[in-house]
């Protein structure tokens, strides 16, 4: 295992400490329990948004804390949901009296731990609503799985919900925006190589030199199938085909197209993939009216990418465009 780390046990706390040192204008970090919150005073009367989950997906979630997006993020150990305690502490730190929205990716651990945190917060008199993100079409949503996973679409949900909270929506309204965004969002990913969890020291899975995993999850969970390596245009066709099918996108739709890197793939490759995806959408008569390309929801140093499509209506487009100022996403003036 080759990594720029010290002791594997200190990866999360040292990285969070570094994050705080790098962005003192944006963020304040707590190291015990571990959570990250906006540096600015909490907005009295503003709905606060808290997200979190296992580490190893950076910049998700802490990179999205700041005006226009999250109020706090709770990074767990690498690939492991945080416990309820830091979630509760973050909740108390950012609650401004208007309630707190939890944005939770659909993994058993995240769902259960945030559920407990919500119980504890309610016991302290804080109103909590929870929206579970499950955009990964690689998993068939059925009785026989834990349901679809939450992956890159989480960024879109955090952005639109963050903008809704910033403009003064109520907790119920912000939750509704988050749910609506999730319902309009689908993602599918591919892996070329596996990431290495620091405390495990070995790759999470093994692929042959000429093999790729279509439908990979962001913890290296397997997907739909292993196929031989093929030109990226064919890979994009597979991922985007599944995404559009599931979303039921049709000619005339306006969408956000988001090509997300898994951590170890160079940006130049993501733009090559974006090109193909944009071409396919153009042929289908679907308008790419917003776009995002880069490493936003990663899986350590995994090589691979995911493609996310969100169907936009006027309101979602406006919420996407609203100003945001975080370590990892900034736009609007």
């Amino acid at each position, binding site marked *: 295992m080759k990594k720029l780390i010290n002791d594997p046990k200190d990866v999360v706390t040292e990285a969070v400490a570094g994050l705080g040192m790098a962005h003192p204008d944006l963020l304040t970090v707590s190291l015990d329990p571990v959570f990250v919150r906006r540096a600015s005073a909490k907005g009295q009367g503003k709905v606060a948004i808290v997200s979190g989950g296992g580490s190893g997906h950076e910049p998700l979630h802490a990179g999205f804390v700041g005006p226009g997006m999250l109020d706090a993020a709770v990074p767990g*150990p690498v690939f492991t949901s945080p416990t309820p305690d830091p979630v509760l502490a973050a909740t108390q730190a950012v609650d401004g009296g208007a309630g707190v929205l939890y944005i939770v990716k659909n993994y058993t651990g995240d769902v259960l731990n945030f559920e407990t945190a919500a119980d504890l917060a309610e016991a302290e008199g804080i109103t909590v609503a929870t929206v579970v993100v499950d955009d990964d079409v*690689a998993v068939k949503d059925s009785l026989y799985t834990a349901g679809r*996973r939450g992956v890159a679409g989480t960024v879109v949900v955090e952005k639109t919900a963050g903008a809704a909270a910033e403009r003064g929506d109520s907790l119920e309204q912000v939750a509704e925006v988050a749910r609506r965004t999730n319902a309009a969002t689908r993602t599918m990913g591919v892996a070329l190589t596996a990431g290495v969890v620091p405390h495990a020291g070995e790759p999470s899975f093994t692929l042959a030199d000429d093999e790729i995993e279509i439908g990979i999850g962001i913890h290296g*969970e397997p997907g739909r199938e292993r196929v031989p390596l093929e030109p990226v245009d064919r890979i994009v066709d597979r991922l985007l085909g599944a995404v559009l099918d599931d979303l039921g996108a049709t000619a005339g739709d306006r969408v956000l197209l988001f090509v997300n890197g898994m951590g170890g793939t160079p940006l130049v490759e993501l733009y090559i993939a974006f090109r193909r995806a944009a071409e396919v959408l153009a042929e289908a008569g679907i308008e790419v009216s917003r776009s995002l390309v880069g490493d936003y929801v990663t899986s350590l140093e995994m090589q691979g990418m995911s493609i996310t499509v969100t169907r936009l209506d006027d309101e979602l487009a406006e919420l996407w465009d609203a100003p945001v100022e975080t370590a990892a996403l900034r736009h609007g003036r």
Partner: protein
Amino acid sequence: MTLDAHWTRAFIERTADVVTESRAALVELDREIGDGDHGENLERGFSAVRAKLATQPDDATPGALLKMVATTLISTVGGASGPLLGTAFLKGAGALGDASVLDADAVVAFLSAARDGVVLRGKAEVGDKTMIDAWSPAVEAASEAAAGGATPATVLRAASDAAAAGAASTEPLVARKGRASYLGERAVGHRDPGAQSSSLIIQAAADTAEEA
């Protein structure tokens, strides 16, 4: 050994030791069909439990000690297994009330409440390839043994053997809950890490009960 507070402390300590010894093996099982952190998660939890055990009042009842295990696991393990095992211990401890010594029925009550707690939170059934596949047969074997008049230690041994068989029984299964459910057929041939660790915990209870 009488199943009193002294036993409870020994059981907790032995569990912590077993988890430390099994850390790598559990990580490996979880790497195969999950995300490779189960051993790490439990070790983090039981190290915290070990540290807290030293600070418990001398007169703490078995129920109080096991409740401490529950809350500590909930606050330190994270992942899926933290809330699930934590709830198991929380409900199990609740079933013991203030009892200072556990008889055979109390052992059954503990195991049964623990299992129900996991089902309550995780909604898994037997055969879903989860820790339930260890807890459920353990509860059944314990009930049967207790009904036949066995000693508490014998009841725990029956539970432990059944849990071990239950953990092994997950190998041919396709998972329907947790992270392994994403693997479909590819989970076949691998043992569920949570079933394995639950079996180790129940085994630690039985081993401790058999000590002088």
